[in-house]
């Protein structure tokens, strides 16, 4: 069998075209990718978000899904300011907690990108708590299962509302929405503002973005 240059070109064009299709397909957006931005410039550290989260999600005393960590005072009296850092689940695209979970209780919901826990499947080995580099997981003293922020997946979000922390923020420092939708507020903010994420070098691809306050010195 002989192959002319013309045959070869036609054949290779066909292969290249066929090869291109899966690439096009994978760029199609299917499902949502819920994402949050914490605007540290707007945050005043009132911790209303922490209270709202506890109430809406019935988080028991002694543990919390969300902490606002206040920095040391910056500047000298009377020009003193603080920085506020949100510590909560980052809803990673590559979540180490899900990878290590032996029973599959920790999972990432493919329709929303939310990382969640099935308390019934959880046996409480605490491997996920050790594996999370953001250290946001705890054992719920009531269910004895691992738990953490689920972007109010089972409460507010299920009722068509925004997560409790976002709803309660008096300064609109929390922006929440679908990153797969280029017109959503969260996509717009991430596209137009200078944001940062923590520990990206670990390859977790976290989906909690932050806008740094002008005083500098980001925590990571």
């Amino acid at each position: 069998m002989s192959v002319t240059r013309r045959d070869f070109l036609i054949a290779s064009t066909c292969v290249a075209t066929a090869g291109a299709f899966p690439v096009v397909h994978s760029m199609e957006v299917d499902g949502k990718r819920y994402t949050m931005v914490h605007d540290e410039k707007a945050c005043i550290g009132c911790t209303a978000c922490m209270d709202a989260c506890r109430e809406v999600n019935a988080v028991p005393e002694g543990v919390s899904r969300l902490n606002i960590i206040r920095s040391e005072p910056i500047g000298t009296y009377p020009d003193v300011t603080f920085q506020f850092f949100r510590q909560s689940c980052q809803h990673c695209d590559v979540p180490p907690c899900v990878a290590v979970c032996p029973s599959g209780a920790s999972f990432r919901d493919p329709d929303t990108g939310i990382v969640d826990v099935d308390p019934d499947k959880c046996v409480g080995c605490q491997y996920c708590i050790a594996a999370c580099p953001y250290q946001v997981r705890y054992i719920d003293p009531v269910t004895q299962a691992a738990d953490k922020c689920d972007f109010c997946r089972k409460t507010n979000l299920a009722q068509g509302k925004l997560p409790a922390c976002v709803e309660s923020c008096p300064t609109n420092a929390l922006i929440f929405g679908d990153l797969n939708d280029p017109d959503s507020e969260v996509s717009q903010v991430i596209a137009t503002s200078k944001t940062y994420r923590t520990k990206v070098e670990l390859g977790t691809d976290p989906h909690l973005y932050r806008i740094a306050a002008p005083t500098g010195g980001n925590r990571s």
Partner: protein
Amino acid sequence: MNDILNGAFHFESLVWHGPIAAYLFLLGLSAGATLIGLLLKRRVIQGPAWKNGFIKAVAVIAPIGIVVSLLILILHLTKPLAFWKLMIYYNVTSVMSVGVMMFQLYTAVLFVWLALVFADPINQFLDLGLQGRLRWLARPIDRCVSFLSRFELSIEWVLALLAAALGAYTGFLLSVLKTYPLLNNPWLPLLFFFSGLSSGVAGTLLLGVVGFKESGDSPSAHWAHAFEKPIIFGELVVLGIFFGWLFLSGGRAEVAALAAITSGFWAVVFWVGVVFVGLLLPLALQTILPAKWQHSVTFIVVLTSSSLLGVVSLRYFILYAGQMTVY
């Protein structure tokens, strides 16, 4: 002093506590003893293996090690009664889940192998034990054993592979944790494999000589001794590479390594327990003391105890000091 101990055993980034260190130690001990037992039976022992005191020691250490370590793991769960879910739901990306699969297989194959090795005394017991009340069991068990004995070599190979994998497993379990730079170290599985093996030799020698009155001068004892020295030497080398890797990685890994071995309670455990008692002392004793002393019972007891103490120290040190520095 209380403050120092309190700080060493209670700190915010600590997730896995002491029982997990005991679990790591016992699992390594069981896997190590099994490997030693297999090697002794294949390479050294002439005649029926079950009469050998070291094989008897392996038959005690290996099953008790695996069973107790699993009990510790189960009791450490926040929902111990839900442990069976680990045996139903599996996740192939989870080192722990793969471990659950492996140690179920390992336990089953271990008991089969021990039944083959101890077939004669088991038969004898079923025939005559408890005034012959177990005689009805003798025939079916004998049939099972003679059927399985056709595959003895394959069973031994499978068991050796499972034991080696479990020895490294305890290291993989911790080395996947990106949270802790000291643990997130590719050399940890090999380090734990070596330390498990050295605890296996030491435990087998100790129980064989003290518990089963095996002579310290027998061919088996000579072989175990000759095996122990390169294992301890290997452990020392891997420990060096383990820390060398951390220091050369820089960043948090360097911070973690420096904190672990230069200050506080765990640095003392490292230098005194792991390095001196566990590695340097046994190596020095084996090298310096005259050959005629090396097979006395006292020498074996001192040598193996110090080696075992070193392995226990290593597991506690790695677990606690490893969790002290976060990424």
